[in-house]
């Protein structure tokens, strides 16, 4: 029970690693930095594994297992401690975070070997691990928020890691700012939670919320407001419409960062938070609809953009946004465990894809444009094969992990009552088709065909072993990662869902809004749905093959003939431009030209200086009485005499 009693060990190890590397790392050789960073993360992973072992022996009554350390904030009527908790959901997240995190750390030692700021990179990465672990371990919303903001900070730091590059720092800022907008909602959500329930501990809030009356459909009650505000936060962190814009830009960071933070872990924090707060969401049909709607829309929207991107990482980025949309969709239809399941499988295959892409980039000397690749299959076979596995997984090819999780979501979208609907399902399937298409497009463009780069200048080489081993590990996970849920297909027990059941069982309390359990006769329906999904994936694959292998001129012709839609897509629907024109530039312009120059300088200072000027002007006017001419002075004396005698006589007569 050691780790259970000392939960703090898990996040603290990476923090120590970050501190040591951050402060002293600059002077140390890479090996030392490596051992510290990897040691910290690895030990943390080991601790999590041990925790998992201990956790499985824990009596259900002791779950969630809460440990409270020092009081953190205690003032007035508010109190929040540093407290950590473990339950099944946390356990899954811990395993994913430390596991994938460790693997990516390993990968980074290879990828970053020749970059400057090596220690700084690992310091940030460890710091990220710390915050991410705090996020998932936090036993109340405020501690969760610590991790929430902290990972945002690390994301900012790592996106802007190449701080000499303007675009990188811009992207970092953008990420932080957009996330702050989400955090604004999260904060207000917490405030409203606190006002409603008088505390922010999960142990207090969630049961209390479960017992509270639910909002009716279409009603904007307290629960709805809380849920929507939290959703805002989740949208920011998990890059959902309308706050997704930062994530594609975030690819400015080093590729391992994209893999770890912007694919596998941090961006899923929103999903985690929604799942964690599922009780509240379930109390609000409006919020559930919003979650599902946003998720579906984002999934489709991002997938369409992904169709035409040429930057290998951008494709993956939009793919991530799209997949996150899936997870939201899952949550929105009440299939929280499916969402978390997809979260996990996505962590594996998207992490893999990114790392593989990184390997490609590494191999081609930093090239990210797929139009300048091609035919790499032979030159970097390890990378090719692992990436292909990842692609198969994400495309939803049966047997691979993505298939299971995606299928579960689509099924829930169709069947779940009262949240699911055919429309959501159609969107989901369409997205699956598109996903399959752009992923295979990526594969075909990158690894097939002829080389479109200058072979004399670019010496393509396979990555070192410390990069390939992580690829293999993740590839394996991408295959087998979905198998715990596999039996469900055949009417058996979904182990994953079963494991998470204690967490999400509270949902059942909400009477008639409880998602209907799967009925046996629906099995055939589910099978049908599955077939459709597989078909969609296959179509995607086929079309990609047609366009990029068979008739390579077709994409260009298509772009010619469908100029307007093509440009809309390649311009990413011009959302960035829209935001810039509608929000950013007006804000800056108003701040500068209205608030600063007009209000501050002209109105307020103007008024103040105006008073001074008026005083001076009056002084100069009054001063003219002092003409130097004695007769004028005498005249003033007469004036004064008249004034005062009149005044006194008037007073005397009165």
């Amino acid at each position, binding site marked *: 029970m050691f780790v259970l009693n000392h939960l703090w060990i898990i996040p603290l190890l990476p923090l120590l690693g970050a501190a040591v590397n951050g402060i002293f790392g600059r002077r140390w050789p890479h090996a030392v930095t490596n051992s510290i960073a990897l040691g910290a993360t690895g030990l943390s992973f080991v601790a999590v594994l041990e925790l998992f072992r201990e956790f499985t022996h824990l009596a259900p009554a002791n779950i969630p297992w809460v440990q409270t350390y020092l009081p953190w904030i205690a003032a007035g009527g508010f109190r929040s401690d540093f407290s950590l908790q473990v339950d099944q959901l946390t356990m899954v997240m811990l395993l994913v975070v430390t596991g994938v995190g460790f693997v990516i750390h390993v990968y980074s030692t290879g990828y970053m070997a020749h970059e400057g700021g090596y220690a700084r990179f690992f310091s940030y990465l460890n710091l990220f691990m710390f915050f991410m672990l705090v996020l998932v371990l936090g036993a109340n919303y405020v501690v969760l928020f610590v991790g929430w903001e902290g990972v945002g900070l690390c994301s900012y730091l790592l996106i802007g890691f190449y701080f000499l590059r303007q675009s990188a720092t811009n992207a970092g800022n953008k990420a932080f700012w957009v996330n702050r907008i989400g955090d604004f909602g999260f904060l207000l959500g917490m405030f409203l939670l606190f006002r409603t329930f008088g505390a922010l501990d999960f142990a207090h809030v969630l049961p209390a919320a479960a017992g509270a009356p639910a909002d009716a459909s279409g009603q904007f009650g307290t629960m709805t407001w809380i849920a929507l505000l939290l959703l805002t936060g989740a949208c920011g962190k998990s890059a959902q419409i309308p706050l997704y814009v930062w994530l594609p830009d975030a690819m400015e960071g080093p590729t391992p960062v994209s893999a770890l933070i912007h694919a596998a872990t941090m961006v899923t924090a929103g999903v985690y938070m929604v799942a964690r707060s599922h009780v509240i969401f379930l109390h609000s049909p409006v919020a559930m609809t919003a979650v599902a709607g946003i998720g579906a829309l984002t999934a489709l929207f991002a997938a369409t953009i992904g169709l035409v991107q040429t930057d290998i990482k951008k494709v993956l980025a939009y793919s991530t946004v799209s997949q996150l949309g899936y997870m939201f969709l899952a949550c929105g239809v009440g299939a929280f465990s499916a969402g978390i399941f997809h979260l996990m499988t996505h962590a594996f295959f998207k992490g893999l894809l990114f790392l593989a892409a990184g390997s490609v980039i590494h191999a081609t000397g930093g090239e990210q444009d797929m139009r300048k690749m091609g035919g790499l299959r032979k030159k970097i076979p390890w990378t090719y094969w692992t990436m292909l596995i990842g692609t198969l997984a994400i495309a939803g090819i049966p047997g691979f992990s993505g298939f299971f999780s995606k299928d579960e979501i689509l099924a829930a979208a169709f069947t779940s009552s009262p949240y699911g609907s055919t429309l959501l399902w159609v969107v989901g399937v369409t997205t699956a088709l598109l996903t399959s298409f752009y992923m295979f497009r990526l594969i075909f463009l990158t690894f097939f065909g002829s080389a479109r780069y200058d072979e004399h200048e670019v010496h393509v080489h396979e990555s070192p072993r410390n990069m390939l081993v992580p690829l293999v590990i993740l590839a394996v996970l991408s295959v087998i990662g979905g198998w715990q849920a596999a039996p469900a297909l055949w009417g058996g027990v979904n182990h994953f869902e079963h494991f998470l059941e204690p967490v999400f069982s509270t949902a059942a309390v909400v009477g008639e809004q409880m998602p209907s359990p799967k009925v046996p006769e629906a099995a055939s329906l589910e099978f049908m749905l599955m077939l459709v999904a597989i078909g969609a994936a296959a179509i995607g694959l086929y079309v990609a093959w047609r366009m990029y292998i068979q008739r390579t001129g077709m994409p260009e012709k298509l772009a010619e003939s469908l100029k307007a839609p093509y440009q809309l897509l390649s311009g990413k629907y011009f959302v960035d431009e829209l935001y810039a024109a509608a929000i950013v530039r007006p804000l800056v312009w108003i701040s500068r030209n209205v608030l600063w120059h007009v209000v501050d300088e002209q109105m307020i200072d103007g008024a103040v200086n105006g008073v001074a000027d008026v005083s001076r002007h009056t002084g100069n006017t009054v001063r003219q009485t002092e003409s130097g001419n004695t*007769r004028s002075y*005498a005249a003033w004396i007469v004036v004064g005499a008249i004034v005062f005698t009149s005044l006194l006589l008037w007073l005397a007569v009165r």
Partner: protein
Amino acid sequence: MVPVSYYVVLSAVLFGLGIIGFLFKRNIITMFMSIELMLNAVNLAFIAFSSVLGNLAGQVYVFFVIVVAAAEAAVGLAIVILIARNRKTLNVERVNLLKL
């Protein structure tokens, strides 16, 4: 017999003329004379009141006023001489170095 108030009125008239003279004249000496006129008006008022009140104090005051006037005259005229010597003018309007 004339009511004493007539004397007081006369003093007021003379006092008023003194004020007017002070404002009207430009020559320092004649301005000063206007002041003397005002003082004379004061004296007349004192004596008139003294007479109507049957109280001799008023006449004593006149005595003091005359002494003060004499002292003022001595100093005032000395100042006039200084001005005339340094500024070569007696026009009060031309003595206006100090202003604003």
